């Protein structure tokens, strides 16, 4: 009995020891590579503004129904419940107006709020932990330069045990390491800047890297693609077939700066937001750095690889204004919808008109038989401002039935991707509910 108690105590001690060891904080302030858009000699507020933009804080910390920037309230519907982003304006009551530098740095890099409670990793402290203290404080300086917005936080909607914030300590012990960015001396300064921009700051992996059973990133599958809030974040490894290995530097740059790469892709959904709020505002040198780094991401096939057919039969048989090569019977319903509501912008040959963003040819969206992003785009539409132009597609979800949306998505996949679409009305219904 006594021996058993000793074992228990020892195990507890080891466990507690391990818990604290695994949850230890990296005491290093960290050093960031030099970014073109945030030179070290710049005013901290101006630096902070650029870093805040590069980290795209506003995308998550702003509610979509007309919310004030950075005032929080955006819902994240996760498999285990809904959580809401927080108010990070300097409002003293409802925002972070009373937070000290150390409190802010701890929150951003360790995931622990001012009151000592754990944050959920929907806030990507797992990536931000690598930021330098100077960069984090620059972001704080910028946020504190903004007008305070009084907007109380929305309580999360999580069931037990997920509503137990303390339990995140164990999640952190298992999946999180507090550590600063380490420059790779064997690489160019540009590559290191790209690694910092795409890693800790831009946190690409948060969407593009597959997650494990514990909702943590599978580092062995880095950037090989994942589904986030119904949208597919594509494989952005250097794999030539499934990733972006075949894209030219120019195409990648064009995409990152405008959300559209000719013959490859037009951003929408969460990536559209990333372009609109963040990437289009980067200094060209920083975009180039990101491209340099992306080029070196090891090629991976990912779980559900997409093979782009750049010249599917029906699309090739079509002209800009008339379809060809469709199956008159199987495609009839989708074609009928497409010719009414879609063809005047997308065109039958996939070239797109009025805006280049309407081009569908060669995109992974129309080559994904599951049709995640095609279906989401039909339901939710696209609305973003890139440079001096509005990029807009109406959200058709409100007036078109699940059957129609599924038929239209499958038609688009077959016509522009040459593949049998697998979208069912039930899928569409599920997406609406999400």
């Amino acid at each position, binding site marked *: 009995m006594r021996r058993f108690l000793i074992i228990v105590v020892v195990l507890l001690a080891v466990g507690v020891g391990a818990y604290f060891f695994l949850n230890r904080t990296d005491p290093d302030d960290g050093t960031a590579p030099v970014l073109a858009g945030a030179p070290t000699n710049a005013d901290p507020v101006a630096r902070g503004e650029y870093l805040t933009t590069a980290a795209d804080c506003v995308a998550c910390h702003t509610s979509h129904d007309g919310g004030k920037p950075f005032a929080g309230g955006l819902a994240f519907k996760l498999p285990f419940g809904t959580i809401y982003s927080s108010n990070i304006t300097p409002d003293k009551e409802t925002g972070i107006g009373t937070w000290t530098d150390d409190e802010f740095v701890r929150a951003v890099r360790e995931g622990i709020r001012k009151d000592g409670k754990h944050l959920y990793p929907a806030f990507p402290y797992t990536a931000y932990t690598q930021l330098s203290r100077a960069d984090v404080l620059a972001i704080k300086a910028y946020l504190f330069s903004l007008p305070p917005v009084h907007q109380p936080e929305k309580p999360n909607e999580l069931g037990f045990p997920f509503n137990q914030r303390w339990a995140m300590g164990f999640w952190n012990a298992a999946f999180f390491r507090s550590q600063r960015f380490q420059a790779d001396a064997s690489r160019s300064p540009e590559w290191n800047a790209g690694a910092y921009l795409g890693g800790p700051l831009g946190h690409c992996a948060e969407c593009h890297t597959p997650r494990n059973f514990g909702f943590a990133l599978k580092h062995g599958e880095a950037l090989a693609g994942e589904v986030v809030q119904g949208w597919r974040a594509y494989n952005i490894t250097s794999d030539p077939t499934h990733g972006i290995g075949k894209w030219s530097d120019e195409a990648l740059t064009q995409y990152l700066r405008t959300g559209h790469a000719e013959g490859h892709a037009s951003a929408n959904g969460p990536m559209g937001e990333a372009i609109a709020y963040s990437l289009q505002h980067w200094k060209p040198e920083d975009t180039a750095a990101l491209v340099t780094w992306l080029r070196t991401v090891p090629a991976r096939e990912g779980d559900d690889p997409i093979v782009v057919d750049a010249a599917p039969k029906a699309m090739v048989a079509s002209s800009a204004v008339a379809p060809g090569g469709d199956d008159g019977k199987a495609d009839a*319903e989708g074609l009928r919808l497409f010719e*009414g509501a879609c063809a005047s912008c997308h065109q039958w040959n996939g070239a797109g008109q009025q805006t280049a963003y309407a081009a569908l040819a060669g995109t992974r969206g129309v080559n994904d038989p599951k049709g995640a992003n095609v279906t989401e785009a039909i339901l939710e539409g696209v609305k973003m401002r890139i440079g001096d132009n509005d990029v807009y597609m109406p*959200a058709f979800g409100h007036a*078109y039935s699940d059957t129609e949306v599924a038929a239209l998505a499958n038609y688009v996949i077959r016509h522009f991707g040459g593949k049998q679409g697998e979208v069912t009305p039930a899928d569409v219904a599920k997406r609406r509910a999400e």
Partner: protein
Amino acid sequence: MNARRDQGDAFDAGRRNALRAAGSGLAVAFLWTAGMGPAVAQMSPRRQAADAAAAAADGNPAFAPNAFVRVDADGAVRLVMPAVEMGQAIYTGISMMLAEELGVGLDQIRVEHSPPSDALYGQPLLGGGQITGGSTSTRGQWQALREAGAVARETLVAAAAAQWHVDPTSCSVARGVITHVPSGRTLGFGAVAEAAGKLPQPATVTLKQRKDFMLIGKPMRRVDSPDKVNGGTQFGIDAKIPGMKVASVITSPELAGTLGKVDDAKARAIPGVVDVLRLDNAVAVVADNFWLAQRGLDALDIEWKHGVNANLDTETLIAALQESSRNGPALIGRKPKGEAAADGKLIEASYISPMLAHAPMEPLNATVHVTPGKCEIWTGTQVPTRCVAEAARICGIPAEGVVLNAAYLGGGFGRRLETDQVEQAVAFARQVGYPLKVIWSREEDIRHDRVRPLYFDRISATLGADGKPTSWKHRITSGTVLGRWAPGAMGKDGMDSDAIESAADLPYDMDNVLVEWVRHEMPPGLVVGWWRGVGPTHNLFVVESFVDELAHAAGKDPLEYRRSLMKPGSRALGVMNLAAEKIGWGGQPLPARVGRGIAVGSPFGSHVCAIVEAEVTEQGQVRLRKAVVAIDNGITINPSSVQAQMQGGLLFGLGAALYNGITLKNGAIEQSNFHDYRSLRINEVPELEVYSVESDEVPGGIGEVGTAIAAPALTNAIFAATGIRLRRLPVALAQLAASPDALKRVAAVGGEKEDVA
């Protein structure tokens, strides 16, 4: 017309007679209202007091015998249109009526918009207001305008005869030329116009018999077509006024919400943005062009203040209507005669008809220039004099200070019977010195439509041993359009005649009929308005669906069942038989999941039957395959227009029934543009045939008839195809494609068709 309601027990009969006499439409309401204020002047074929001023304003044409005809010294014949043209082809119809009697070719007439004047252009069927609506134009002008043409012709002939010193009866008129038949001498209208203007007008004129018509009854080309195919037609939105600026507007999306703080710094920083103007509930950005104005509007940071509707949504509203339906008080629109049979099979149902937007292709707009003591307006409206009155009120000037320049309407459908957009434009324009064109974006147009009312209906009948109803009870619950739009036209008991049209006056020979209406006050800001087909559009959906339900319950064919309830020789029976014959009712068996639905009614002084053939796919999608419409509209002025109105009207109604319903969330209309407020497209249009019954009866309305009969024909076809009875519109969302239960039934078609939902 004497349509004063009788008192006591007989009042119901009086009301029914009024309905029968006038046909129906907005008209009815006005017809049987006594005491709408002092007797109003209205259109007259002869010169009247107000005519002199109008002629003077028109540059004193050589001959202006009435408010409509102007003959200039060069012989040009101009017709001033008492109604407005919004697609219904009334400019052509009126021109034909006038030309027929005046003795000119349709090609010789130049049509002109009328200036605002109830006295000269008041519609007799609408209380004498200068109003185009309710499918009343042809009905209300048929007599007066032919007579106006005849008066003008006889006066011109008299002038020529006087010059020749011959008997006027020895003269004939053709293509604007008067001929003295015995001598062959001729004089053009222009040559005698001046002289004719000085002659007394004939006290009586004899109008042509139908057999003598040269124009009326022929499919004449519309007078407005040539300009409409080359982009030349001037709609309100095309107004170009020197010095004009353009505004884009946003009104509180939450109905009855108000404007809080507006930060306009970013908007004003846009080059080309001129002004930011505010009202209690709206803000406008003024710029050099509409697109810049829209950019400016997007750049505003606006705080809206919640009002009473912050928590209003569609389902709450429906629940409130249902509550009112249960609790009343109900006004009686038709009293049952005789005793209901003690027993029989009771059939009951309830129906929901959604709110609907008009979405005319031309978004609402008005151009307004306010200067001291004056307000000039350019717009397309169905109610010119109402616009003038509102502008005068807002500017605090007499009505004489308001000038309204009419334009062609890019669709009306009832939306332009309202003045709200013009009022708003005036309120903005009076804040600036320059002419201001205010255009509502499509999003504003839909989010601030004055929607077709939401209706909740409970209806029941008891069937006798022969399957025919021995009693019929129908309780309609809704807001009132008439009660706001023309409160004086409401019945003394508070009845809204529009709400019960085509419900109280059934084409079926039944005595024990009770029709009631419960008035449900809509929340402030949710303003309901006239929508093409008005009351009958809703009532025919309920009545004709329910008759179909009774036929099913009685185990009878829907056509045979209706026949058994109609009086032999009735005009409604006539159109129904014609439609049934043309589609081959009961002939070849139809493919699986294909059904035909029939609906018949007598709205707007006409009689109409539509038979729709529809397929329901296994996935629950509805396809229109074929439709046949038979119409008896009395004497036809222009058969081409009748065909066009029946085609367009039916498709307008079918599109709405398939797709449309305005819904509310947090007090705001959720729909905004054609992606979420769908419109029928050409690839959804069925094979469509229109047949007319030859008739000597007075002309009936045609603009709204097709729309009013569409929905029940469609839902009855869906029932015939699937056994699924849709008691709520629209069809497309949720009820078939998204209902697992419905899909199971659709898949199982071929077996027993059951009544569900």
